[in-house]
């Protein structure tokens, strides 16, 4: 053979790497440079100053919305995966199993359109509550604001987190769980004290991935909520489409990188603490 296996391997992988370099690494460095360059050239924090002046409220709003969505998603996923693993009524477990995965591959933009109609003042949700006599027609309010964004994110991301969590729970040693049950612990206690600590890494991975996904979604905040306050993704699109203001948009972009880096670091720190402990 004229070339070594190592060279062949690099040759085979090179085209794929080139695409990632051209369409991710290059624009990423472009955005970093643009964010840190002043109007007259040279390194400056002007873009960040302007971004903070105009959008500090939205930065906070984004953090709160995304964290709240992740918390609710985690909670819902724990309840679903816990029921699937420890549930004793076969009929309930079977129904839940058939139901919970439906939104898994539904695109965010479709989820947004669903919620736009469902959560509206005269949407199916309020109408059903009125029809069931749970609510007076005059009490109906629209949920198409921050609550709508959270509801859409949780609706869309819960199946993904629950799927990973249920997989992890199915793989742990059943004997410890059975032992806990035999000693008289309730199923809730077995789930919280015995099962969950063993699958924390998988739960955290799923939530970190969901966190980054939510920071990337443009369609949901545009379609589900009004204009102010809104998520940073909408602000970036607005800076570009209305003003062609790349510096401020990229400064906001760097802020979203930092937010997702923060989530990743929390995860890595936990992983390292665990490794040094064991």
């Amino acid at each position, binding site marked *: 053979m004229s070339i070594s*296996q*190592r060279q*062949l*391997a*690099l040759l*085979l*992988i090179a*085209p*794929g*790497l080139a*695409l*990632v370099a*051209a*369409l991710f*690494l*290059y*624009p990423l460095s472009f*955005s970093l440079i643009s964010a840190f360059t002043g109007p007259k050239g040279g390194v400056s924090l002007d873009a960040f100053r302007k971004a903070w002046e105009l959008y500090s409220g939205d930065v906070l709003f984004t953090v709160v919305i995304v964290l709240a969505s992740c918390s609710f998603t985690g909670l819902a996923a724990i309840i679903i995966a816990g029921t699937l693993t420890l549930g004793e*009524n076969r009929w309930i477990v079977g*129904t*839940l199993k058939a*139901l*919970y*995965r*439906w*939104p*898994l*591959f*539904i*695109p965010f*933009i*479709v*989820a947004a*359109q*669903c*919620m*736009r*109609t*469902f959560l509206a003042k005269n949407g*199916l949700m309020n*109408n*059903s509550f009125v029809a069931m006599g749970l609510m007076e027609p005059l009490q109906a309010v629209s949920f198409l604001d921050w609550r709508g964004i959270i509801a859409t994110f949780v609706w869309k991301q819960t199946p993904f987190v629950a799927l990973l969590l249920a997989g992890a729970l199915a793989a742990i040693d059943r004997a410890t769980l059975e032992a806990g049950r035999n000693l008289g612990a309730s199923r809730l206690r077995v789930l919280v004290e015995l099962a969950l600590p063993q699958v924390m890494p998988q739960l955290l991975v799923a939530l970190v991935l969901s966190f*980054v996904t939510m920071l*990337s*979604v*443009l369609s949901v905040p*545009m*379609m589900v909520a009004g204009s102010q306050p809104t998520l*940073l*993704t909408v602000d*970036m*699109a607005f800076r570009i489409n209305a003003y062609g203001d*790349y510096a401020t948009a*990229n400064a906001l*972009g*760097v802020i*979203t*990188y930092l*937010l*997702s880096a923060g989530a990743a670091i929390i995860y890595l720190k936990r992983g390292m603490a665990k490794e040094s402990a064991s």
Partner: protein
Amino acid sequence: MMPLASSLRTALAVVLLAAFAFVLIGPLANLALWSVAERWYTPYKLPVTYGTRYWQQVFRPSGDAMASLGTSVWIAVLTVVVALALSIPAGYALARLKLPARALFMVVFLLPQAFPSVAIYINVARVFYQLGINGTVFAVVLVHAAHGLVYSVWIAAAAFGAVDKDLELAARNIGASPLLTFFSVTLPLAAPGIVASGIFVFLESLDEFTGTFFVGVPQVTTLPLLLYNAAMGGNYQVASITALILLVPSVLFMLFIERFLRADVLAKVGA
């Protein structure tokens, strides 16, 4: 156990399950209702008149929706071709060959999915604009392929990794060249996993909104962009019908993915 307490618990579980089903199915049901509502306004809890007028409007051969559907499918097919052309060699190298810094390369393919993407896309659009390819199908395909590459590369690597090495050695022993072995043994055995990754990339491309929003406008209108324009324009019927068209492949894929992606391949994804 007391029978009363136990039946109370079951009743509570059934109520909770019904509430869960309502939350899960309700938004989809509302979408379906809007798609067949010809008139629906405020005091009425259900559509005033039902009909398929908007379906006919959407599926008219000359309508915007058919053109968008055609654009979407064409872009998705090209994206699959590009992604597989890049990921089959890359996946084979990652699974079978001695590659320095293998873990690093695996992470590089994940990066486009691991960063908030809006800031990346605005700069891709800027670069494409300077190159004069913004608003072309080619540009959209490149963006979709880069985004889908993590799935196709990781799944291809897992599929090649799950092929029994002894079968390849057997082929080599009876005199097959490495290339013939790859095409007659390794690739056919890895094919189900690679098909699954292709379907994954196809769906990702079909559903992609953000990248197309920045790179494709105004010339390239895919179904998600049509849905967005219809929804923001207040045409709930067309938006809902477009959403339903996008919903069908997603739900089918959710129901059938386990047939394509065998457990032994799935367990190796990302490893």
